[in-house]
């Protein structure tokens, strides 16, 4: 009797979850949706001008240098790589124990290119570059929305991305916007099955950030969930998928070759993380430890806040899973849990650096009344202004 009740309960539960499930479009359909998508370029430009204008006004009012603030912390590392390449020995930070090996080469290479080999002001050019990349990324993001979420509000997505908490990273001399652009490009081309392009984008992704490597693994997860064991048969039928599998992480391996040549340690990008106090451990232990600060020492806000953000990330990841967006869920999972295993620092930054979290948030906002959704976006934008002010004051917890 109990078994019957439990089974019925399970059926009701899975049935109620099933209504959130989305259908994946066929490649032909995806292609035609992508072509038919009307990108709100005006909104994209307006959102960027308005938000950046307000941030700039805050800097001017507070007698701060906008450009200097946007090029601080990791921006300095990127500029260092642009001007003198990768370190041979550790020398950075106050203890002289950090090298620039943690920073992947594509963004600084692009920075070198747009500053004409370092001749132009890297702060100004870097900020312009990041924002220009964001314009393209938002355009691609809207196209991806049209493919996977037909009817979803692109304007909401654009304003959410441009103004949400932590969105100032998209204006900084950071690699976030480049990563967004490449991520959307590879997601679109994967849905359209333009596999040659996917190879290129994923290679560039793994040359941009370490988390880029996870794209291929997430692709594998999607294939396994959708096709089950026949995924392996399909792999044999489609050698282009196999090639994506090895081309995806190639960027990382090329970077490893450079590091081996420079330092003698191909894994220097990972080993150097200890200089920032990052050491591989159990992500769940780190999460619980961080959350426990709310009870034991709420005045120690940083770990408690970072852990709470990780919890939000887990919720968003689960939400993608409920919608059966397996590739996006896989990307969210790897982006969250691998850094979480090494500590709680910069968790919000990892999350905002991966567009699938913003897509999940957008999916949630799409389910509430329109006016409420816009109000929440506005509240997020106001909270972001407080973060921007802290960023100008070089608050280390925002790094």
């Amino acid at each position, binding site marked *: 009797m109990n078994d019957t009740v439990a089974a019925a309960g399970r059926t009701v539960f899975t049935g109620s979850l099933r209504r959130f499930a989305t259908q994946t479009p066929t490649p032909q359909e995806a292609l035609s949706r992508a072509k038919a998508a009307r990108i709100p370029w005006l909104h994209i430009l307006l959102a960027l001008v308005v938000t950046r204008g307000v941030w700039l006004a805050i800097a001017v009012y507070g007698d701060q240098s906008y450009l200097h603030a946007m090029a601080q912390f990791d921006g300095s590392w990127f500029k260092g790589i642009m001007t003198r390449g990768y370190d041979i020995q550790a020398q950075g930070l106050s*203890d002289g124990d950090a090298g620039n090996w943690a920073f992947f080469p594509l963004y600084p290479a692009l920075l070198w290119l747009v500053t004409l080999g370092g001749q132009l002001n890297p702060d100004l050019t870097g900020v312009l570059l990041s924002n220009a990349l964001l314009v393209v990324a938002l355009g691609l993001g809207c196209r991806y929305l049209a493919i996977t979420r037909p009817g979803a509000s692109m304007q909401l997505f654009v304003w959410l991305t441009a103004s949400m908490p932590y969105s100032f990273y998209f204006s900084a001399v950071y690699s976030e916007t480049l990563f967004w652009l490449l991520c959307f490009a590879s997601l679109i081309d994967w849905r359209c099955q333009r596999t040659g392009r996917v190879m290129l984008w994923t290679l560039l992704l793994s040359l941009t950030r370490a988390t880029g490597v996870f794209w291929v693994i997430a692709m594998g997860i999607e294939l396994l969930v959708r096709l089950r064991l026949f995924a392996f048969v399909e792999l044999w039928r489609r050698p282009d998928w196999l090639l994506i599998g090895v081309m995806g992480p190639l960027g990382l391996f090329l970077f490893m070759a450079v590091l081996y040549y420079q330092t003698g340690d191909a894994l220097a990008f990972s*080993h150097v993380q*200890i200089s920032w106090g990052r050491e591989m451990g*159990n992500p769940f232990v780190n999460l619980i430890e961080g959350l426990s600060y709310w009870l034991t020492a709420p005045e120690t806000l940083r770990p408690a806040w970072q852990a709470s953000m990780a919890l939000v990330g887990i919720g968003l990841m689960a939400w993608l899973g409920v919608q059966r967006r397996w590739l996006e869920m896989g990307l969210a999972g790897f982006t969250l849990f691998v850094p979480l295993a090494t500590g709680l620092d910069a968790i919000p930054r990892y999350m905002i650096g991966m567009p699938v979290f913003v897509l999940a948030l957008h999916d949630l906002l799409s389910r509430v009344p329109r006016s409420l959704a816009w109000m929440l976006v506005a509240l997020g934008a106001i909270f972001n202004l407080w973060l921007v002010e802290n960023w100008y004051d070089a608050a280390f917890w925002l790094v």
Partner: protein
Amino acid sequence: MTQHSGLSEQGAEALYAAPRIAHRQRPWLLLMTAIVLAFELSMLWLARDPQVDDHYRRYFIDHATTCYRPIGEVPVIEMGNTYAVRKGEVLGNCGVLWAGFYSPKEDQAVSARLAEVTLRLKVAPGLHQPVVVGMDLSRYPDNAEPLPVQVVVNGTLLTHWPVGGSKERFEVDIPERLIASDGSISMTLKGPPPIAPRDVGLNANKFPIGLRLDVIALHSSPRTTTQKAGE
């Protein structure tokens, strides 16, 4: 639909379209896959054996020490005072602890990650008297049996301490001749091999932990005190 479309909600061809790879392209794609894979495997092979110096290996790879190189002043220890050894405290810098000690956080005890670790201590220059160095030491894990730890100062073996899991105060008398003219004392502790929490089933931490050091205290040698009283 493919013959196995019943196994998934949408079949492989419906989801991903039929393969567009021409028959003659296939060997080339497989060849390219093999070449790229061979390169990646060879990089992994090279990554197994980094060509780096000892400092790099100890700090970046083995995580055997908190400090890459000695940085920070070695502070002068006052007689009669007790010093907590923690990151952020007077004796928690890379000048004192750099060789083998690991001090992860300000609220955690400093622990050795090697069997042999060295502390750099300093007394007031020109002290001209033997001193007693006391240390609150324990060995990982908490239920570890006491095992001898050699105490070597400036290359001279002075004593053995039976250090177990429970925190205990140990003291060593350092003769005046082993204290350098600038007051510095190089004190090496050679203990049993450290143990990783993973190896004793406590948690997943793979980095070994040896001696834990909580407190250092210095006071005058009783011999000196007696001698002075006699005078």
